[in-house]
């Protein structure tokens, strides 16, 4: 479908152009922490806010764009919700950048209540920021509903969730891609609801002066933020399930009872794991802290037992032809699991007691995002470009894969070591207390430059070819 090719190409161009800019913001932050640069605190925290929101935003929409494109293999996909999502995303990003760089909004991605009301920010910037999130939220919600409706028109809900597979029936088969996409889209619905309530409460205070409860606001913030990022990963996994076996020359994956069980379990567990963000809030009911640790530890079981085993089993003695797309998927799974290990160690309450808000946290989330989820989306993008242009980017394979993976691994290693040395996150300069932070920031920045080089080469390759898709589809 030409219209779907076109909107997918538009997403890819937008995302791959913003990605190096967001990386550059991150490098500037690390160089400032290393005392190589001297940014003002407001500039640093503005960069931090923009970096976090841009990275989560672009890779969320890219993983969803990948799923939207691949969904046409099974159901009729309507393009207007995707286009609607694209337009509102652009509106949201413009408002966001205006709030951050025009109005000095610098509260971090999570704008933890009540910080926006205390930060030294232009008053209009807080409103612009909230409207920006509203625009992004509405756009993404309508887009997700569009995909969910498209699935449910063909697959009744119980079939889309593969419940008949749970009881041992093998027909009619629910493809794993439909199962994972459905659980992910359903998982997003309460996250969007939480975001609406959160924004509503912010507006009540902003416009009506009604004070809110800080613990409730924190729960809503992390429920929404954690779930969104988790579901973004699962969209990437859906694309992997769909594309990876074919890249290895193997038949498609099938939905077996344990696959159905795993993804239905994920649907429930993902809603409760976010409690680990509030471990250090001792006033949170203690039973929820137990739920948080249990859910955080149960969540990776389906992922490891099903996805990793399937991917390793697919590659083992397969004679696979390695090029960028399968390499991205394969190494993405590896780093996803490694990052997951870092995360579940942090999800033990007793460990979180000494790791919370240290650089151990960006260490693990950069591992399963930069080196996991982003690679899943890059795998899709590389495959899409080959489908559209016939060019598999073989000239880029060695330089891009080597620079990206080596740079990424070194970059996150600096975070892990710093986290274990109690170096805190989200500070513009390290106090004397953690003197090692500066040296490790420089090491991290240098490795991140390698990632930036890989991304720059890759972006030129992708944008040129996707631009042709956009123009050809338009004419």
């Amino acid at each position, binding site marked *: 479908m030409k219209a779907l090719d076109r909107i997918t190409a538009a997403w890819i161009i937008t995302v791959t152009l913003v990605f190096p800019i967001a990386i550059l913001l991150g490098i500037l932050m690390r160089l400032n922490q290393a005392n190589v640069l001297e940014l003002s605190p407001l500039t640093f925290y503005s960069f931090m806010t923009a970096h976090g929101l841009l990275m989560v935003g672009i890779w969320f929409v890219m993983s969803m764009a990948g799923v939207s494109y691949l969904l046409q293999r099974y159901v009729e996909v309507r393009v207007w919700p995707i286009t609607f999502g694209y337009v509102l995303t652009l509106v949201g990003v413009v408002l966001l950048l205006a709030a951050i760089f025009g109005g000095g909004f610098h509260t971090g991605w999570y704008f933890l209540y009540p910080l926006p009301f205390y930060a030294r920010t232009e008053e209009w910037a807080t409103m612009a920021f909230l409207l920006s999130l509203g625009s992004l939220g509405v756009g993404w919600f309508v887009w997700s509903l569009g995909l969910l409706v498209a699935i449910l028109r063909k697959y009744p809900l119980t079939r889309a969730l593969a419940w008949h597979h749970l009881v041992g029936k093998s027909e009619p088969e629910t493809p794993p891609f439909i199962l994972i996409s459905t659980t992910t889209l359903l998982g997003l619905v309460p996250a969007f609801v939480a975001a609406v309530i959160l924004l509503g409460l912010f507006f009540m205070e902003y416009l009506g002066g009604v004070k809110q409860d*800080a613990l409730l606001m924190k729960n809503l913030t992390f429920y929404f933020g954690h779930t969104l990022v988790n579901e973004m990963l699962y969209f990437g996994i859906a694309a992997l399930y769909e594309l990876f076996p074919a890249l290895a020359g193997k038949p498609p994956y099938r939905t077996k009872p344990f696959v159905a069980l795993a993804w239905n379990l994920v649907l429930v567990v993902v809603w409760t794991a976010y409690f680990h963000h509030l471990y250090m809030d001792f006033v949170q009911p203690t039973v929820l802290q137990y739920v948080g*640790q*249990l859910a955080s530890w149960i969540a990776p079981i389906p992922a490891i*037992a099903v996805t990793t085993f399937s991917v390793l089993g697919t590659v083992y003695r397969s004679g696979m032809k390695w090029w960028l797309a399968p390499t991205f998927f394969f190494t993405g799974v590896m780093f996803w699991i490694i990052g997951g290990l870092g995360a579940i160690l942090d999800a033990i309450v007793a460990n979180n007691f000494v790791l919370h808000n240290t650089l151990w946290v960006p260490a693990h989330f950069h591992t399963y995002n930069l080196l996991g989820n982003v690679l899943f989306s890059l795998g899709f993008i590389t495959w899409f470009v080959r489908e559209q242009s016939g060019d598999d980017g073989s000239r880029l394979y060695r330089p891009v894969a080597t620079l990206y993976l080596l740079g990424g691994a070194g970059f996150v290693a600096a975070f892990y070591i710093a986290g274990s040395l109690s170096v805190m996150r989200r500070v513009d300069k390290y106090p004397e207390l953690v003197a090692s932070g500066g040296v490790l920031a420089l090491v991290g920045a240098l490795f991140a430059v390698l990632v930036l080089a890989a991304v720059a080469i890759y972006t030129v390759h992708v944008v040129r070819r996707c631009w042709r898709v956009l123009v050809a589809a338009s004419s």
Partner: protein
Amino acid sequence: MPQSTILLLFSLGALVIAGVFWWVWRSSYQPVSVSVEPLRRWIFVAILLFVGAFTALTLWRMPYFLYAEELPERVIHVVSRQFAFALSERPIETDAEYAAALGQTLELPLGKVVEFRVTSFDVNHGFALYSPDGRIIAQVQAMPGYINRLRWRFDQPGEYVAQCLEYCGAAHANMQARFVVR
């Protein structure tokens, strides 16, 4: 678990994972028709056992119940506000009491249980205790409208730093307080 042990466990785990992926990747250059499906059940059981054992070992070590059966030797009231902590043995409820408590250097007893009652007058802050050798030994959040109680027993004499660990605004990095344990 000390941070160095966590880093060691993580590094070993990451090496094992990377090693398995590297071995499988190498095997892809020697194609042969083989099914690894029978292994799946055993790997699932192994993961379940690992997760179960680790959860059983760690779930009971919650910081919420530290020294719950003991009476604290001292109670320290902590109020956080952009960008300083006020620590006092008396409750701090007003701006004047906050201002009066700022800059006091407390002396806390070695080997005795101390209870910190931590709150905030404005935004969320973090109250992390750094030992004299610069490692986090305990922490709790400071949330407006709530009092978080953290009990701790200091086993090492020296100067400790309380550092804000929740991003709270432009001067967050400098938000510290110091006290002495002897």
